């Protein structure tokens, strides 16, 4: 029977191609608008590292002055750690791995003065970074814990930067000159692009979604060379003079991560942090006695508002637009079905029940929905391609995945069924006697 209804539906749709095209197009545009904005929101708010996101934690202490404290309120700029706390975290903090991230940038000096400089932006970190975030290597590998201790002059490059400097060869063991010193290249990172870039949300070059670290050096090395931090530095207290004064200050400029063996260890990590803060308070620091906080990956992304309000606004408006398209299609279907009262009358008179009529018209609207879905999918791909082209920031997130592909079809078919319900129900109400009499 389904095949028969399908044939009936197709024939009826062919009878009035302009109207059918209008319905399909309206649904397709509505679906495309909402799916493309939803896709961006979906990718932006997705979990970038599902296997670990609950056991990777960012610690935050409130080091701002006591006098200006409004209890219960975290200062909006309180997002990073001091050098002193970072060193203590790395030495004795909780979890199986701990790492820190400072932003560094400079230029690689060419062998000959006349050649152009090659700019690099990246991070100073520790060896645990690479294991903690499962960073793949194309050549070589990470430095050792001993390199972290010594502050060795070693560097890991991104694949793109390595190719720019050395061409497409294995550069491990070669030297680059940065910050007036020779660094030995010991590794090249392979393709690695978590979206969002949860590891490095603050100061990450290229925004929350796009871009990459081009160079990695041991944090100790960068600190020893007095490399000026390349990212956000917030000082809420007076800092002492020079580099030593800066390191000893309450300025916050470092991002720290803990990796726990299991998410269940979080209370223990919290206890460690509270205990550490209490020790520091004995020394006269952290006089706000504000809550000491830990954030896992998803919590951290929401603290930093990775999904901008504009993206949510776009989704709401496009859903409103989809609603309009559904109402519009409803009107068109109503018009179409109302001209077929006589057909319904004949079928009813020949013994078709209301349910049969209902099924027949529902199949027809579903066909419209499927066609709208297919076209909507094509339009969504087009819209996303356009967005990628327009915005570098969004180029990493304006990408469809399988979930959204399925969502497109479900949305389209659902939309057409909702649009078709009222007209279909009206069609079922046709009284065969009246209809036949009027013929």
């Amino acid at each position: 029977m389904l095949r028969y209804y399908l044939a009936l539906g197709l024939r009826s749709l062919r009878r009035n191609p302009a109207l059918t095209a209008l319905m399909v197009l309206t649904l397709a545009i509505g679906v495309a608008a909402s799916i493309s904005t939803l896709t961006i929101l979906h990718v932006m708010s997705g979990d970038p590292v599902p296997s670990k996101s609950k056991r990777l934690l960012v610690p935050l202490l409130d080091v701002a002055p006591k006098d200006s404290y409004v209890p219960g309120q975290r200062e909006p700029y309180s997002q990073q750690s001091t050098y002193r706390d970072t060193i203590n975290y790395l030495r004795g903090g909780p979890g199986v791995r701990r790492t820190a991230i400072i932003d560094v940038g400079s230029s690689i000096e060419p062998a000959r003065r006349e050649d152009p400089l090659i700019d690099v932006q990246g991070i100073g970190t520790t060896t645990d970074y690479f294991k903690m975030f499962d960073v793949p290597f194309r050549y070589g590998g990470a430095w050792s814990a001993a390199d972290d201790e010594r502050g060795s002059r070693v560097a890991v490059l991104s694949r793109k930067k390595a190719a720019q400097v050395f061409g497409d060869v294995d550069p491990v063991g070669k030297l680059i000159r940065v910050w007036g010193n020779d660094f030995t290249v010991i590794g090249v990172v392979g393709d690695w692009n978590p979206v969002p870039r949860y590891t490095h949300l603050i100061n990450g070059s290229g925004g929350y979604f796009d871009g990459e670290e081009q160079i990695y050096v041991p944090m100790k090395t960068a600190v020893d060379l007095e490399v000026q931090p390349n990212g956000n530095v917030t000082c809420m207290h007076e800092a002492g003079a020079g580099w030593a004064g800066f390191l000893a200050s309450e300025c916050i400029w470092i991002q720290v991560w803990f990796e726990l063996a299991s998410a269940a260890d979080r209370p223990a990590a919290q206890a460690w942090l509270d205990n550490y803060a209490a020790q520091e308070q004995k020394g006269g620091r952290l006089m706000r006695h504000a809550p000491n906080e830990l954030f896992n990956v998803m919590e951290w992304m929401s603290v930093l508002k990775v999904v901008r309000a504009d993206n949510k606004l776009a989704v709401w408006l496009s859903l409103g637009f989809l609603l309009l398209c559904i109402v519009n299609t409803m009107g068109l279907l109503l018009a179409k079905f109302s001209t077929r009262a006589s057909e319904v009358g004949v079928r009813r008179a020949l013994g078709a029940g209301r349910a049969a009529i209902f099924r027949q018209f529902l199949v027809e609207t579903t066909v419209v929905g499927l066609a709208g879905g297919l076209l909507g999918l094509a339009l969504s791909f087009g819209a996303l391609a356009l967005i990628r082209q327009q915005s570098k920031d969004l180029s990493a997130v304006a990408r469809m995945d399988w979930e959204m592909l399925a969502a497109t079809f479900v949305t389209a078919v659902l939309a057409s069924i909702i649009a078709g319900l009222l007209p279909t129900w009206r069609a079922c109400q046709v009284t065969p006697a009246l209809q036949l009499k009027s013929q």
Partner: protein
Amino acid sequence: MEIRPILSQLMKSRTGPLLVAVQVAISLAILVNALFIVQQRIAVSERPSGVADERNVGYVTARPLRTLSHPEVLAEQQRELELIRGIGGVQSVAWTSQMPLSRSGSSGSVRADVSQTRESASPSFYTVQTPFISTLGLRLVEGRDFTDADLTEFDVNKDTEAEPPAVIITEALGRALWPGETRFVGRPFYFGTSGPRATRVIGVVERLQTQQAQAGEPGERSVLMPMRISNPTSKFAIRAEPGRLESALRDAAEKIRTTSAVPMRVTTRTMTEDRINRYKNEKALAWMLIAVSALLLLVTVSGIVGMTMLRVAQRRKQIGVRRALGARWRDILRYFVTENLIITTGGIVAGLLLALGLNRMLIALVDVPRLPLEYLAMGAGALWMLGIAAVYGPAARAASISPAIATRTA
């Protein structure tokens, strides 16, 4: 014109007209809010920075790849200044720590009273040397510009207190420090959230946006501090003769790079580029909303046209009878236009309420003010006109049906 028969006809078959009214309501609600947000975003991106004739202003950033001592840095600054001054097309050049709209630079806390524990404002901290104000073309509205005698010296490796005794502020910062006052010269204020580090206002400029150019008043709160500071990185604001900015910047960068004793990273940027980058998101959202609005109107018009065509088709016989009984072409036309006006007006009334509701929701979600009444009036007027335009075609065609043909068939 009789309205009663139209109303009774509408009451008899309600669903189609109701659906059109719903469409009008939804599109009015979305349209008004979308266009209001577009206008807001465009207004934000067109705020003046305070810099006169922005298209002739740009800057060169020079960073030596070696650590230099305090005297070496100051000597290098002087050398670079001389170089840039000698370049063709350069009208004026001044050393600065940051530029408006460039999204890079420092800001800090200031307070009006020494006993305050929270800041009065967090302005952008411009460290500048003369003639910064005339190079950017800022409008001095009170007090005086800096002279070389105001410049204090600051060694980043030795000194801790960076703030000079005399500064110039923007009017917006003055309003934040001393609400209700209009004259600020001579007033003292304090840096940080503690300690007695006082300074005094010697001049006020009308406007200078911060490096972030945030929305609203905070985006115009800046303080200018006259200092020779041994920042390793030097920035030079350059005003060029009309049409010569690009070449002046290029020549300046080239000259600094090739004549430097140490390897040097030199980059250039125009204010036009910074402005485009700063407002990229605003522009993108505005375009998206405009596209949605256009589609919205298209769909709504197609809905009205479709519904009118259906009602005309259903009433061919009735039209024929009326025509045969003496109704003129324009009576029929007027009938359908009036019917449509009733439907759209209903939709518009509902749409106005819906628009206000949507506006409430958006206020909670994004930073938009309350919807002004003009927008509601304009949106309602536009949809009204659109409704008449959409119905005119099908109605005119219906009215020209010959009575003989219309009444003939079953």
